[in-house]
């Protein structure tokens, strides 16, 4: 009964958040104006605002939210720990360092740094480099504990690099501000280029993830048991790490560092609809997309004041604390 309500509820929430993302912004536009602008008719101003500003922003938000939540589900199954998050293996801090390096070295990189693609690409490469380094450092077998410890060490190292670049560029305030804004995540000024950079690959990653739900169920209750029951655990672990890294790296590349989505959304949904990954994965993708759009709507009321990463943490932090205090 509950299960049957889940999909329609989440779809409705997502549709609502999506429409709200198109309807609310700096300029007051009526729902009629928004819809006709979407259809390509109506006055030029609302067409530009809806189609060039709000639509790409909403699409990037949906893609990033779905990616982060799905990635969270994967990491939690992988580490058999409901408190695991997408950033555990250095993806986020690697992405952060990559982006900050491009911003800091901007002048030295010349033309390459001026394209719209430079920052997301650098962030993506940083994210991938970091996770590869964690896997390499943890070395053979790559037991969960070693992976975690390598992740912690590398996160600290990369964080130090990011902080160093932040302070050394403090005199050049334009660069410095861009770094700060990026490190706190945000969907403002997203364009169709960002949609094309993130959304199709995220969609593909999500589609590849969906058939792994049943095997993830087994893995989440023990590696050796899963192996004995006929799961190719080695292969599954690689698939999961790869997909989770790609998804988080893409979300980070187009939206900056956005915390807690990968923790809060899977948790809420697991509490509501149970831990079965065959359902949890699609629910988390829909729920993550809706959650991020809702958080983005809050940031619109405080331009530059409340960054997206700040809002998700403001919502996620108290939730996390409640989770820790809850009797298990």
């Amino acid at each position: 009964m509950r299960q049957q309500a889940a999909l329609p509820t989440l779809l409705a929430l997502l549709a609502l958040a999506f429409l709200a993302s198109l309807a609310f912004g700096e300029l007051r536009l009526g729902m009629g104006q928004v819809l006709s602008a979407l259809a390509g008719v109506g006055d030029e101003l609302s067409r530009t605002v809806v189609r060039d500003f709000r639509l790409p922003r909403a699409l990037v938000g949906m893609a990033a939210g779905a990616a982060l939540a799905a990635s969270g589900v994967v990491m939690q199954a992988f580490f058999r720990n409901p408190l695991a998050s997408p950033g555990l293996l250095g993806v986020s801090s690697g992405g952060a360092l990559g982006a900050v390096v491009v911003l800091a070295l901007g002048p030295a990189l010349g033309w390459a740094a001026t394209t719209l693609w430079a920052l997301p690409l650098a962030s993506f490469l940083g994210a991938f480099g970091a996770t590869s380094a964690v896997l390499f450092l943890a070395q053979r077998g790559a037991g969960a504990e070693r992976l975690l410890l390598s992740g912690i060490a590398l996160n600290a190292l990369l964080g130090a690099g990011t902080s160093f670049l932040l302070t050394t560029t403090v005199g050049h305030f334009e660069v410095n501000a861009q770094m700060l804004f990026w490190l706190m995540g945000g969907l403002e000024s997203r364009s169709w280029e960002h949609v094309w950079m993130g959304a199709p690959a995220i969609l593909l990653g999500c589609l590849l993830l969906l058939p792994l739900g049943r095997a993830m169920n087994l893995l989440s209750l023990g590696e050796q048991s899963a192996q004995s029951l006929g799961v190719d655990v080695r292969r599954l672990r690689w698939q999961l790490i790869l997909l989770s890294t790609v998804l988080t790296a893409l979300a980070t590349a187009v939206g900056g560092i956005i915390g807690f989505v990968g923790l809060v959304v899977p948790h809420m949904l697991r509490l509501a609809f149970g831990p079965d990954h065959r359902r949890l994965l699609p629910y988390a993708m829909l729920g993550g997309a809706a959650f991020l759009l809702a958080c983005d709507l809050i940031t619109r009321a405080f331009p530059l004041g409340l960054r997206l990463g700040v809002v998700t943490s403001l919502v996620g932090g108290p939730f996390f604390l409640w989770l820790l205090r809850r009797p298990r």
Partner: protein
Amino acid sequence: MTTALSAAGLGVPGRLEAVSITLGPGELVAVVGPNGAGKSTLLQALAGLLPAEGGICWNGQPLSEISITERGRRLAWVDQEAHFEFAFPVREVVAQGRYAWGDNLDGVAEALAELDLTHLAERPATRLSGGERHRVGLARALATQAPIQLWDEPVAQLDVRHALEVLRLARQLTTRGATLVVSLHDLRAAYRFDRVLVLDRGRLVGNGKPHEVLTADLIRQVFRVEATFVESLVPELPSE
């Protein structure tokens, strides 16, 4: 007679030394030995879950030639630790035993009933006692309907009634042709098995019928206790 499970020179560096055994279908086999003797390692190695030296054959076929899915159909292994981090209902955990068979859920209800879990079927596995969790692990193994079953200390955490039921179930499975390898600490129970394997510091020091293997000498040598044989205290366990 065909062999169900055989190992030649099976070794795991530092934990198990060159174990060679051949087990037939329908055999109920006990693995005993002090803590750290290598009982769990032997079971994991036989299940193909550890990188190990030497050769393993299931039904006469080298393990390396058996696909991972086929392995899930032929052999079930039960961990001595049963921890569930996620709140799957008991029924779903047991149904995982059918993974290698696609979506076919044959035998799940029977497995729940055999382990006295039917009334707990919808309860989240995180909210079970240690013994109940063990029974869930056994039920999952049962649901695989695999002809080779390796159970690592299945009764250590069970109350007397459930422990006896599990041992009776083990015997019952062998009468249907299954091969069971069960590690135990209870030597009196082991005495009722068809065959006993005794491990000491990673080496196989006894392999044969219980009364031939479990002698006072060997028990003194391996377990460093003096044993006196009296009439068994587990008369309900059928000895074939």
